[in-house]
């Protein structure tokens, strides 16, 4: 790859998946960057919601936390946290929930709770936060993460957020009426669930990425869609927008990049 990093490609590919009329529940890190790049390029009217209660935010820099002051200052309104989870998330008003993962399996199930046994963990991770109900209440779920064998695993240690379970019609059997994970954007590829099995399948490789590179950083045997395409490279506008956003963010946060 020349001219852009794999991380930039990931963020820009994620931004492209968002539509102008989406109402998007934004997590911190890559999802936040992607959502704001979308807002600053092709989706100026997108509604961004952070779980701290800020609805319709338009931050000039990326927040370090989900409750930074600028989110409130630029919001259409700021509601209490119970209202956010009851009226806005559970109320079915969010079209897209954006999640990251520490561990992800092929069916879009996510673990951000523990590595190892729950009661005697090898690594105690932060936990689910809003994710369990984001995964069940949003119209659909986009997941974004960097690929690694530690991250994309055959079996996750803990179901923090339910994706498609063991695949197929698992969501319907649980009484879930939302679509669940419909898109996985990594630093190497774009993945979509197979319509029948719900297994994530690579539908596009980012420029310069090989099938082997995708397989080497994934803990299950990767399936590639028949019509596999190449992700269009970032445009100059997309790249400039993302880099300017990151530069403003770094300056605002005292020279340190958002994690």
């Amino acid at each position: 790859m020349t001219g852009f990093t794999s991380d930039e490609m990931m963020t820009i590919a994620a931004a492209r998946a968002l539509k102008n009329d989406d109402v998007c529940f934004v997590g911190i890190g890559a999802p936040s960057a992607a959502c704001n790049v979308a807002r600053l390029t092709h989706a100026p009217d997108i509604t961004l919601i952070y779980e701290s209660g800020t609805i319709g935010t338009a931050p000039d820099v990326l927040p370090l936390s989900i409750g930074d002051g600028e989110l409130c200052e630029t919001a259409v309104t700021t509601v209490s946290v119970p209202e956010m989870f009851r009226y806005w998330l559970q109320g079915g008003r969010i079209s897209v929930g954006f999640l990251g993962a520490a561990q992800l399996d092929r069916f879009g199930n996510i673990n951000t709770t523990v590595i190892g046994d729950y009661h005697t963990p090898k690594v105690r991770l932060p936990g689910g936060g809003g994710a369990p109900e984001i995964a069940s209440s949003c119209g659909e779920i986009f997941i974004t993460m960097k690929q690694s064998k530690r991250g994309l695993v055959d079996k996750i240690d803990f179901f923090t957020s339910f994706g498609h379970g063991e695949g197929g019609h698992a969501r319907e059997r649980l009484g879930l009426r939302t679509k669940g994970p419909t898109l996985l954007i990594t630093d190497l590829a774009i993945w979509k669930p197979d319509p029948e099995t719900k297994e994530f399948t690579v539908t596009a490789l980012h420029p310069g990425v090989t099938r082997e590179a995708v397989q080497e950083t994934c803990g299950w045997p990767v399936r590639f869609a028949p019509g596999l395409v190449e992700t269009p490279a970032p445009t100059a506008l997309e790249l400039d927008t993302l880099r300017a956003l990151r530069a403003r963010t770094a300056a605002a946060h005292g020279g340190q990049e958002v994690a």
Partner: protein
Amino acid sequence: MATFMSLAEAVSSNVFDGDTAAFEGFTHLIPHAAAHEAIRQGRRDLTLVRMTPDIVYDQMIGMGLAKKLIFSYAGNPGVGLLRRLRDAVENGWPHPVEIEEHSHAAMANAYEAGAAGLPCAVFRGYKGTSLAKVNPNIRSIICPFTGEELAAVPSIRPDVTFIHAQKANRRGDVLVEGIIGIQKEAVLAARRAVVTVEEVVEDFAGVHPNACVLPHWTVKAIAVVPGGAHPSYAHGYYARDNRSYLEWDAIAADREAFMAWMKQNVLDKDADVFAGRVAALRAAR
């Protein structure tokens, strides 16, 4: 009825060993000064409740105040894991900490139910999650009209809740503005509520009729502690000290570095230091 007093007095007269205590704040208005005072006063065996335990809970857990933690997301926001909490959970240092873990939706509903005087909260959640299997306080009820199974969790009713707010008026009414989080519910759910504020004003003249105001008779004690949310922020007063959050990661990584930092910055200090800590951050608002 709210009584104005020093923070030391507010803490010593409202939180006791063995209490269930919430120091709430959702990124914004986190009551750091109050938590530091509880550390100085050496409280023990607390059940600490918070949706988003972050570095100040890392400090309390590392200093051995906590018997149990009830929470939904334990991290250093935007930075990473809580290393003192991990040391307690993974290695039992300074002693083991019992964990009751929920989702944000569950905790938000549980505080709401506590404020509403209900024994439990009912919501749609936890479908397909492992948490429902490991936490016996996640149960269900059946909707008597549709037959749908809904999640139920016990309401949260802390013995004491601490929050930080922008203003009190002379009578002791408290105004919270901006990202109001779960503070109103945490106060109303508690037996006793203690509020630290940036300042006291004569009255709230001109405040919006629907602003978040806690009437004086819902609060036990108010202590004036300018900067008392640092390194968190106070909307309209000072900005978030992001650098302190980033630096915490290295401090908390090592037991000795942690203890030295706590001695220097908490044990050997008092609530008056907070005003100085936010002096440079006031300009950023």
